[in-house]
């Protein structure tokens, strides 16, 4: 189907179904129950799942396939954001314009940065990309504030030309991003008994791009081009000795993944037309590294899982505070309850980064293949009860790179 093999087609269909039905899947608890705080089905968070999913899928095309670890991918996210907002300011509020300009602009940046950075590999490549990203950040913060509006961040204003639309709405409010008239913030709420589900226009715009991006990623992974990138990862020297110039391939991968990041940036400003320099900070680049590794670098679904996992916990875990914990452990004796809350306290709420850091370390140490490898191992455990355990074992060790 669609030029995919059966296994990939199944995966693709699963992802499509998950993305389309996410408003249901992410809201499993009735909105009046005490578990409602674990519902992730509100538009803002769902959009972020997809946007960071796209970002991570793109990053994975570079890191997962070629092994080049870029520590400066947030620069493209930032460039995409700025390009998007400028499009809103100059031309009009259609998100398609903004997204196209984001992708093109970040592609140009990626060509320049990639052309220079890819002259080196290994740690030097990481440092070079890091240096470029930090440079972009510093410049956006200071000298280029004419373009980026420095610390305040770039936002829409009443004096923008907006040639294709109007600068200000009739009632004096700022126009909002739309897709041929459908406003991004438009949300339909469906109430089914105690459950309520939000269907947001912006989310479905993101969903379309997510599905397209994911499909493209599968095609790249299965193409001869993808094979070439994998060969670069396993032994670049040998490729060079066979008389093959790998630079165009790695550069292409770098630019593609930069364009994914630009797309993510464009979608971000389409949902909320505001771009700030801190989007380029290297900790942001670190975040996408975390997502990709946590989910499983080099796998198709891994980065999406990682992005969803981190964003979910960032938003849900960080909302749990001591009061909630006291509520949960209320059935215990007071001393035990307080001790437990005290014990868990550093890991929740504002301390959830600690949990994330520990989790990330555990994954790097014990599960280099990320959540995907974890899933495969668990499946392997269940299957091992069968008679051909050894055979399955061999299969399991062969597959983690997929």
């Amino acid at each position, binding site marked *: 189907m669609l030029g995919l093999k059966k296994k990939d087609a199944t995966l693709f269909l699963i992802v499509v179904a998950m993305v389309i039905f996410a408003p249901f899947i992410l809201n499993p608890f009735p909105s009046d129950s005490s578990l409602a705080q674990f519902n992730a089905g509100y538009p803002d968070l769902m959009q972020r799942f997809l946007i960071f999913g796209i970002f991570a899928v793109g990053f994975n095309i570079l890191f997962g396939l070629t*092994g080049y*670890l870029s520590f400066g991918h947030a620069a493209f996210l930032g460039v995409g954001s700025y390009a998007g907002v400028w499009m809103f300011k100059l031309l009009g509020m259609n998100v398609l314009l903004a997204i196209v300009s984001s992708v093109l602009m970040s592609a140009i940046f990626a060509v320049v940065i990639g052309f*220079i950075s890819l*002259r*080196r*590999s*290994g*740690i*030097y490549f*990481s*440092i*070079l990309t*890091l*240096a*470029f990203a*930090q*440079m972009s950040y*510093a*410049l956006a*913060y*200071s*000298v*280029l504030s004419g373009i980026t509006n420095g610390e305040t961040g770039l936002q829409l204003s009443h004096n923008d030309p907006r040639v294709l639309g109007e600068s200000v709405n009739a009632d004096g409010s700022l126009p909002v991003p739309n897709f041929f008239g459908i406003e991004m913030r438009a949300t339909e709420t469906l109430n089914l008994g105690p459950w309520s589900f939000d269907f947001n226009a912006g989310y479905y715009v993101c969903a379309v791009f997510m599905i397209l991006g994911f499909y493209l990623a599968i095609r790249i992974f299965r193409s001869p081009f993808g094979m070439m990138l994998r060969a670069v990862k396993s032994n670049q020297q040998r490729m060079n000795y066979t008389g093959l110039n790998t630079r165009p391939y790695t550069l292409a991968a770098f630019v593609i993944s930069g364009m994914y990041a630009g797309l993510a940036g464009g979608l971000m400003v389409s949902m909320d037309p505001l771009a700030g320099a801190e989007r380029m900070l*290297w*900790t942001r680049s*670190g975040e996408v*590294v975390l997502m990709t*590794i946590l989910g499983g670098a080099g796998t198709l679904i891994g980065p999406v899982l990682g992005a969803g996992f981190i964003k979910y916990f960032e938003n849900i875990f960080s909302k749990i505070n001591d009061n909630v914990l006291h509520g949960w452990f209320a059935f215990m004796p007071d001393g035990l309850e307080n001790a437990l809350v005290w014990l868990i306290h*550093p890991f929740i709420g504002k*301390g959830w*980064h*600690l949990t*994330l*850091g*520990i989790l*990330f*370390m555990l994954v*790097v*140490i014990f599960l*280099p293949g990320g959540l995907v490898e974890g899933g495969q191992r668990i499946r392997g455990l269940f299957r091992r009860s069968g008679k051909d355990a050894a055979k399955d074992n061999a299969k399991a060790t062969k597959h983690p790179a997929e």
Partner: protein
Amino acid sequence: METLIIQLLNGLDKGSAYALIALGLTLIFGTLGVVNFAHGALFMIGAFCAVTLNRILTLSHTVIDDTQKDFLGNPLKVEVPYVNGIFGEAAGNFIIDWTVPLAILFAIPIMVAVGVIMERGLIRHFYKRPHADQILVTFGLAIVLQEIIKAFYGANPIPTPAPDAFKGSFDFGVLLGFDPFTVIYPYWRLIYFVFSMIIIGAVFAFLQFTTFGMVVRAGMADRETVGLLGINIDKRFTIMFGIAAAVAGLAGVMYAPINSPNYHMGMDFLVLSFVVVVVGGMGSLPGAVLAGFLLGILQSFASMSVVIETIPGINQVVIYLVAIIILLTRPRGLMGRKGVMED
């Protein structure tokens, strides 16, 4: 001329911090071949050693002081630090005033212990793994360490003053024959520079003139052969890791009065220190020190108003720009050894 000297001096203290961190990074890289992204966190832990010692020394109990009255006429309650009770008031105040220098003694065992635990507990398992894995796991460790510090000390910077004797500034210009008050420089920054020179000198002397250092240098050059000669090189490298951690920690302790410690100071320095290491040449100790000072001074020159007016924004990007140029034109860095981390 005066402004040039001021900028040179300003560059020295930042350069000292870069040089110390880069020295530690290079020690770890040169001995163990590990790219340690948690090194900035060690710097930060060092700074928080000073904070912790300050907290310990100022632990106090409430005493009712009959000689003083509050506005209602009741005897005033005064917080008296325990150290005053132990050593007497004058000595106690003196000790509290000198917290930061004392924290050096406090930090050395802690940092060595942290370093050794880190190496034995975690990094040892990553020697055979690719560099990307080492970067990732130490990056994770850096996040964990920094969040632990945040959980204990909060997110705000904690002012940690230098001893009163070193407050104020030193009129450097008079020494060089300029008018008074043209070239003034805070005492503590001068001390920081001198201190870093001492530490750097001590590390080099240790490697150059002791048997232990000689074995370590031999191990850096050819680990396998040294191992075959029946020397337990792993143990020595572990100790070197501890020393590298202590160097970063001491850099942090002494930096506390210059910049109030906060939990992300390590990350801020780490990025620049990596650039410094790469510019100096991966695995080259003199290169790291040289590049540290060079980039520190360069950054400070670039922030002169004349320079900023000519090339706006240069002060923000000069280090990265230099790093990019050096990486592309001199792939081994300024003083990199042949065969270390070459593609």
